[in-house]
């Protein structure tokens, strides 16, 4: 269930000093799978090895621009389903959007 980055929302956690140390997804992935890659618009986050992703979804939760979303595998949901997170302080709201337009929401604690 690897994360997919929306390059228009991601800003590479652009910082005054630059560098990969500062991107939240890079810092937070327990498997060190997130990297920043160069694009014409600047640095953007990307999962470097989709098959290694352990599906913890920490990166999705912590992205400050909510640019990451999870694509679910067929075992769980129809292909093309998207799982998005809206992260609060103590609560988190998951939204599951199926390709047929069905929307499910689930509230939980962080």
């Amino acid at each position, binding site marked *: 269930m690897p994360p997919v980055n*929306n390059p*228009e*929302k991601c800003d590479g*956690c*652009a*910082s*005054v*000093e630059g560098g990969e*140390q*500062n*991107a*939240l997804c890079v*810092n*937070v992935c327990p498997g060190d799978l997130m990297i920043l890659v160069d694009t014409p618009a600047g640095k953007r986050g990307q999962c470097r090895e989709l098959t290694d992703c352990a599906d913890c979804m920490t990166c999705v939760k*912590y*992205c*400050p*621009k*909510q640019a990451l*979303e999870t694509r679910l595998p067929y075992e769980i949901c129809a292909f093309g389903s*998207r799982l*998005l997170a*809206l*992260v*609060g*302080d*103590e*609560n*988190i*709201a998951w*939204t599951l*959007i199926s390709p*047929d*337009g*069905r*929307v499910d*929401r*689930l*509230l939980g604690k962080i």
Partner: protein
Amino acid sequence: MILSQEVRALKEQEKKIAIFLCGCNGEVSKVIDLAALKDAVKGKAGVVATEISDFACGPEGMQQIENTVKSSGANAVLVAGCPITVHTQAYKELAKKLGINPWYVFRADIREGCALPHKDNKAAAQIKAKNLIAMELAKARLQAPYEPKLVPGVNHALVIGSGVAGLAAAQDMLHAGAEVTLIEKNPYMGGRVAQLARIFPMLCDSACGLSFRIDKIKKDPRSRILTGTQVAEIVGAPGAWDVTVETQPQFIDPSRCIDCGKCTEVCPVEVDNEFNFGLDKRKAAYKQGYSCSQEPTYFIDPAVCKGEACKKCVDVCPTKAIDLSRQPAREVVKAGAVINATGWKPYDAARIERLGFGRIPAVVTNMQMERICAPDGPTNGRLVRPHDGKPIKTIGFVQCAGSRDEEHLPYCSTICCTATLKHTLYVKDKAPDAQPYVFFMEMRSIGEYEDMYREAQRNGTVFIRSNPAEVREDPATGGVIVQGEDTGSGERYEIPLDMLVLATGMVPNEQPQALQDLNLLTSDYNFFIGHKQCFPYETYKGGLFMAGTCQEPMDMTNSVRSADGAVGKSLAVVGREIEILPNWTQVEVNKCDQCERCMEECPFKVWYNEVDASGKKQPMPNLLACRQCGICMGACPKRAIRRTGYDVFQMIKMAIEPKESVGENEPTIMAFMCENDALRAAEQAARMGKTYPASVHIVPVPCAGSVNMVVASEGFMAGLDGVIVVGCYDNECHFLKGSAKANERVTTYHETLREMMIETERLKFINLGIREVDKFLDEINAFVDAVRKLPPNPFKSSKPAASAEGGVGAGKKKVRIKCQEAEADVVLSPMKGGVDYEVIWINDERHRQWMIDTLIEPWDQTERSAMLWSEEAEPVLDWSEWWEDH
């Protein structure tokens, strides 16, 4: 530098809150039933007493508060009544009298925030008042107390520039008890005033005032004067500046110089004398400054000295004071405040080609005229032409030479007209038969300088309203002929003059690179105007103030005044101990991910990286420079940044507090309004008797930029139907970027909402000016209307506190669903596979389109449309069973 390393545990010290519901002499109580309100709030957590008062800020009301606090043992007071901006004095004094921490007096605004604007809907006002008090209680429970934070200060000030403003600043600072280091770029002190002959309006000798000040400063044991010195580096914050200053190599040792002048006699290098604006020459070894300069020593100009190749002065010096190999010296000055008084220079008159300066020797500038008339100038004060010694009988002055001119200086330098009037008085004093002419556009001798204008007219100066078209040299006399049109009479004139003086304008001196790098607030013409109307001393870096003509063209009086003002501003950060402003920022280092968003978004560049032994960088705020806006708090994605007085967690708790909507089917909306401008418009609307929907609950915030979007997330998840963020206009934001940042964040958040299929109408950013009552009402009404058309918050529906009616059916089922405040009749149909159900019909128009769009699977059209309109739906499903299965 003082750092904030401590992780501050929120002082959830047991708060015992006494609530006072103030009827405000009927203003509130005629709309809100206080007795019912009391019953609603008295049982809330943390409340030890609840009283009703008719007039809480009056003497009886205050006495009631005092009595209740004493008898209930409360340590915090919540007054529900007027907003925090009124009767502030009364509550401050109350806090002091009762020994309550000043931050433990809470004010819930149920007057301008509830009773006044909702007087047409008492039922809603009642519920909203309860909500507002509950919100204030939520904030109160997390409130940290006010504790002054003192840091050791430095009782030292650095003054840059020893012109009249710098001297005034240094003298005032010493008088106030601080130590002062005064640095000056030139080898002499006194700046431009040292180059003047006399100063207006009293026409006294400028050397008098200067030597008085210089003397006083020199004699004070706490002062240090460094001439030939400039700023090389500047680092720090108010209260803790580290300024590296560099002194030019002192080839002549000042402690050995006996003022004999032999070095000058033998020096072979001759250059233009800049002190006399090039009217004569000086040597590389020379004595600079006016004839009664306090500085005794001679000076060798390292820029033009031939150095080891010559050495004539070294041999001839009787005390062996000269060493041409000396190097520049650097030192670090630690100061609490820096006052920059770097002054001005004259505009280069050679650029005004038609007026002939630079090609015609008889054309001089106003500053050169001062040197001519000064007793220590190139002509020893005699009114003669410097280039050929001829006595001056006719003299002209051209005003606005290169000023108020788009091709040169577009602005007015304010003093040149008065200076010219002074010159005409010099002329008449030195040569009573001489004839001065003044060519002017407008005479701007403002205020009481008008007296000088009258005197100049009385003593025979001819004023011609004209901008001279041409100045040419008269080879016969060595003078000039000025030609133009007198706009008063309409006649052409051609006037021969012995000398022509151009009244050129003032340009700020160039700053050392170190100061330029600070990107301070300058005007288009490089004057340090700060925020011109309200905060003329303002710079991005607090604790660094500008004084004198580097701020804008001004006369001597105003230069001195501005220096006095700069000292006044500096005294807050010069001294043994400094109190940090109370709402300071702190970082919870455990939560921080070092993403440095705070560093980028802080408009005042207050954040820096603290590097520990292992090289790990931790962003920290410089508390002395922090402006307490909270924009960093709004930016931090991990909520690692707190602000002592009012922080993001309090905002979250306030946003999620309202449990009850103000009316049936009324949405619940939070409006975060900047307390500087935007909130005032809302208060004003209420006072003017305007009404708006009660669904909107207002939460004041220090800046729109301090609102973290997590507040919106938590709010929506808790069931809020709408969130508005209201900030001031971008050019009126007190914190420069706050409103713009809030707007950006809301726009990004809209993207998120859109992708999650939540209506973006639920969140809006609005710019509002302080008196824009109509705009406030229009925007609020439009927003509430838009939200009313939306179905209830989707997160509300996912947490049904539901009750269902009806029995079990088969196949398609009609149910009434109540889900918190939402209620609808829906028809459910089993999905393919028979496991899940789907909504295929719904009675409430508001919800219908939304549910059709998001939940209904494409079906066979006939079947669906038959169902949609059928009234013969089957009896209902047991909703609870359905939910258990799913």
